[in-house]
Protein backbone atom coordinates (compact mmCIF):
# COMPACT_ATOMS: atom_id res chain seq x y z
CA UNK A 1 0.00 0.00 0.00
CA UNK A 2 2.77 2.35 0.98
CA UNK A 3 4.67 1.41 -2.16
CA UNK A 4 1.58 2.13 -4.31
CA UNK A 5 1.16 5.52 -2.69
CA UNK A 6 4.81 6.27 -3.30
CA UNK A 7 4.53 5.25 -6.97
CA UNK A 8 1.50 7.51 -7.48
CA UNK A 9 3.27 10.36 -5.71
CA UNK A 10 6.25 9.88 -8.01
CA UNK A 11 4.01 9.93 -11.05
CA UNK A 12 2.34 13.26 -10.35
CA UNK A 13 5.28 15.53 -11.29
CA UNK A 14 5.70 13.64 -14.61
CA UNK A 15 2.02 14.06 -15.43
CA UNK A 16 2.31 17.81 -14.97
CA UNK A 17 5.17 18.08 -17.45
CA UNK A 18 4.51 18.66 -21.13
CA UNK A 19 6.64 15.67 -22.21
CA UNK A 20 3.72 13.19 -22.54
CA UNK A 21 1.79 15.60 -24.77
CA UNK A 22 4.90 16.34 -26.83
CA UNK A 23 5.70 12.67 -27.47
CA UNK A 24 2.03 11.97 -28.26
CA UNK A 25 1.91 14.66 -30.95
CA UNK A 26 5.42 13.86 -32.23
CA UNK A 27 4.60 10.15 -32.45
CA UNK A 28 1.43 10.94 -34.36
CA UNK A 29 3.15 13.32 -36.80
CA UNK A 30 6.08 11.00 -37.58
CA UNK A 31 5.82 7.28 -36.74
CA UNK A 32 8.29 6.34 -34.00
CA UNK A 33 9.35 9.90 -33.17
CA UNK A 34 7.67 9.75 -29.76
CA UNK A 35 9.73 6.70 -28.81
CA UNK A 36 12.87 8.34 -30.22
CA UNK A 37 12.35 11.37 -27.98
CA UNK A 38 12.13 8.99 -25.01
CA UNK A 39 15.43 7.37 -26.02
CA UNK A 40 13.89 4.10 -27.22
CA UNK A 41 15.59 4.25 -30.61
CA UNK A 42 15.33 0.55 -31.48
CA UNK A 43 11.57 0.58 -30.88
CA UNK A 44 11.34 3.89 -32.75
CA UNK A 45 13.16 2.44 -35.75
CA UNK A 46 11.03 -0.71 -35.83
CA UNK A 47 7.80 1.30 -35.52
CA UNK A 48 8.93 3.70 -38.25
CA UNK A 49 9.89 0.88 -40.64
CA UNK A 50 6.68 -1.05 -39.99
CA UNK A 51 4.22 1.83 -40.28
CA UNK A 52 5.94 3.66 -43.14
CA UNK A 53 6.49 0.30 -44.88
CA UNK A 54 2.78 -0.48 -44.71
CA UNK A 55 1.95 3.00 -45.97
CA UNK A 56 4.39 2.77 -48.91
CA UNK A 57 3.09 -0.68 -49.93
CA UNK A 58 -0.43 0.72 -49.83
CA UNK A 59 0.56 3.68 -52.00
CA UNK A 60 2.48 1.43 -54.44
CA UNK A 61 -0.60 -0.80 -54.72
CA UNK A 62 -2.65 2.29 -55.70
CA UNK A 63 -4.67 2.20 -52.49
CA UNK A 64 -7.42 4.76 -52.04
CA UNK A 65 -6.68 7.99 -50.19
CA UNK A 66 -9.91 9.02 -48.48
CA UNK A 67 -11.00 12.63 -48.78
CA UNK A 68 -12.60 14.52 -45.89
CA UNK A 69 -16.16 15.72 -46.22
CA UNK A 70 -17.43 13.16 -48.74
CA UNK A 71 -20.46 12.46 -46.53
CA UNK A 72 -20.26 8.66 -46.82
CA UNK A 73 -19.85 7.10 -43.36
CA UNK A 74 -17.35 4.48 -44.61
CA UNK A 75 -15.27 7.22 -46.24
CA UNK A 76 -15.33 9.22 -43.01
CA UNK A 77 -14.13 6.18 -41.05
CA UNK A 78 -11.43 5.47 -43.64
CA UNK A 79 -10.28 9.08 -43.45
CA UNK A 80 -10.20 8.93 -39.64
CA UNK A 81 -7.97 5.86 -39.90
CA UNK A 82 -5.65 7.41 -42.46
CA UNK A 83 -5.47 10.61 -40.39
CA UNK A 84 -3.45 8.57 -37.89
CA UNK A 85 -0.51 8.73 -40.30
CA UNK A 86 0.06 12.38 -39.39
CA UNK A 87 2.43 14.07 -41.83
CA UNK A 88 2.30 11.11 -44.23
CA UNK A 89 -1.45 11.64 -44.58
CA UNK A 90 -0.85 15.31 -45.34
CA UNK A 91 1.85 14.43 -47.90
CA UNK A 92 -0.46 11.90 -49.57
CA UNK A 93 -3.12 14.58 -50.02
CA UNK A 94 -0.63 17.29 -50.98
CA UNK A 95 1.14 15.24 -53.68
CA UNK A 96 -1.97 13.26 -54.71
CA UNK A 97 -0.39 9.90 -53.90
CA UNK A 98 -2.50 6.76 -54.15
CA UNK A 99 -5.80 6.72 -56.01
CA UNK A 100 -9.26 8.23 -55.74
CA UNK A 101 -10.89 4.80 -55.81
CA UNK A 102 -9.74 1.19 -55.48
CA UNK A 103 -10.06 -0.28 -58.98
CA UNK A 104 -8.90 -3.87 -58.36
CA UNK A 105 -8.20 -6.36 -55.59
CA UNK A 106 -4.61 -5.25 -55.13
CA UNK A 107 -5.72 -1.62 -54.78
CA UNK A 108 -8.28 -2.72 -52.19
CA UNK A 109 -5.47 -4.41 -50.25
CA UNK A 110 -3.49 -1.20 -50.60
CA UNK A 111 -6.34 0.81 -49.12
CA UNK A 112 -6.48 -1.52 -46.12
CA UNK A 113 -2.70 -1.29 -45.69
CA UNK A 114 -2.88 2.53 -45.57
CA UNK A 115 -5.81 2.64 -43.12
CA UNK A 116 -4.23 0.00 -40.86
CA UNK A 117 -0.90 1.86 -40.91
CA UNK A 118 -2.75 4.93 -39.60
CA UNK A 119 -4.50 2.93 -36.89
CA UNK A 120 -1.21 1.32 -35.84
CA UNK A 121 0.39 4.76 -35.60
CA UNK A 122 -2.38 5.85 -33.21
CA UNK A 123 -1.47 2.86 -31.00
CA UNK A 124 2.26 3.67 -31.23
CA UNK A 125 1.70 7.34 -30.32
CA UNK A 126 -0.48 6.41 -27.32
CA UNK A 127 2.20 3.88 -26.24
CA UNK A 128 4.83 6.64 -26.28
CA UNK A 129 2.47 8.81 -24.22
CA UNK A 130 2.00 5.99 -21.69
CA UNK A 131 5.78 5.53 -21.42
CA UNK A 132 6.27 9.26 -20.87
CA UNK A 133 3.70 9.63 -18.10
CA UNK A 134 4.76 6.44 -16.34
CA UNK A 135 1.55 4.50 -16.99
CA UNK A 136 3.62 1.86 -18.82
CA UNK A 137 6.83 0.54 -17.34
CA UNK A 138 9.90 1.80 -19.16
CA UNK A 139 12.27 -1.18 -19.33
Amino acid at each position, binding site marked *: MAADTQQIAQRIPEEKSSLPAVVLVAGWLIPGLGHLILGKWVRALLLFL*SIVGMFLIGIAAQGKIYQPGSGDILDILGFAGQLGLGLLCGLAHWFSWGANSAVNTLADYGTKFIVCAGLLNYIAAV*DAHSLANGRK*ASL
Partner: protein
Amino acid sequence: MTLSHFSAVLLFSLFTSVVFGITQRAQPKMMIRFGAYCFVLFVGAVVIASWVMYAIKH
Protein backbone atom coordinates in the same frame (compact mmCIF):
# COMPACT_ATOMS: atom_id res chain seq x y z
CA MET B 1 3.57 -3.43 -58.19
CA THR B 2 2.62 -7.10 -58.05
CA LEU B 3 1.73 -8.65 -54.73
CA SER B 4 0.15 -12.07 -54.32
CA HIS B 5 -2.56 -12.65 -51.74
CA PHE B 6 -0.21 -14.70 -49.57
CA SER B 7 2.68 -12.24 -49.73
CA ALA B 8 0.24 -9.47 -48.79
CA VAL B 9 -0.82 -11.55 -45.79
CA LEU B 10 2.79 -12.13 -44.76
CA LEU B 11 3.71 -8.44 -45.02
CA PHE B 12 0.58 -7.27 -43.20
CA SER B 13 1.13 -9.84 -40.45
CA LEU B 14 4.79 -8.94 -40.08
CA PHE B 15 4.31 -5.18 -39.78
CA THR B 16 1.25 -5.44 -37.55
CA SER B 17 2.89 -7.99 -35.25
CA VAL B 18 5.96 -5.76 -34.80
CA VAL B 19 3.76 -2.84 -33.69
CA PHE B 20 1.59 -5.04 -31.46
CA GLY B 21 4.66 -6.60 -29.85
CA ILE B 22 6.27 -3.25 -29.04
CA THR B 23 3.12 -1.53 -27.81
CA GLN B 24 1.36 -4.31 -25.90
CA ARG B 25 4.26 -5.60 -23.79
CA ALA B 26 6.77 -3.85 -21.53
CA GLN B 27 9.78 -6.18 -21.52
CA PRO B 28 11.83 -6.67 -24.71
CA LYS B 29 11.78 -10.47 -24.38
CA MET B 30 7.99 -10.48 -24.00
CA MET B 31 7.68 -8.08 -26.94
CA ILE B 32 9.43 -10.58 -29.23
CA ARG B 33 7.36 -13.45 -27.88
CA PHE B 34 4.05 -11.60 -28.25
CA GLY B 35 4.99 -10.34 -31.72
CA ALA B 36 5.81 -13.87 -32.85
CA TYR B 37 2.56 -15.12 -31.29
CA CYS B 38 0.53 -12.48 -33.19
CA PHE B 39 2.33 -13.31 -36.45
CA VAL B 40 1.59 -17.02 -36.11
CA LEU B 41 -2.06 -16.29 -35.24
CA PHE B 42 -2.47 -13.95 -38.23
CA VAL B 43 -0.94 -16.33 -40.75
CA GLY B 44 -2.46 -19.43 -39.17
CA ALA B 45 -5.95 -17.92 -39.20
CA VAL B 46 -5.58 -17.03 -42.88
CA VAL B 47 -4.37 -20.54 -43.82
CA ILE B 48 -7.24 -22.15 -41.89
CA ALA B 49 -9.82 -19.76 -43.39
CA SER B 50 -8.42 -20.51 -46.86
CA TRP B 51 -8.83 -24.27 -46.38
CA VAL B 52 -12.36 -23.76 -45.00
CA MET B 53 -13.29 -21.74 -48.10
CA TYR B 54 -11.71 -24.43 -50.30
CA ALA B 55 -13.72 -27.13 -48.48
CA ILE B 56 -16.97 -25.17 -48.84
CA LYS B 57 -16.43 -24.70 -52.57
CA HIS B 58 -15.52 -28.33 -53.23
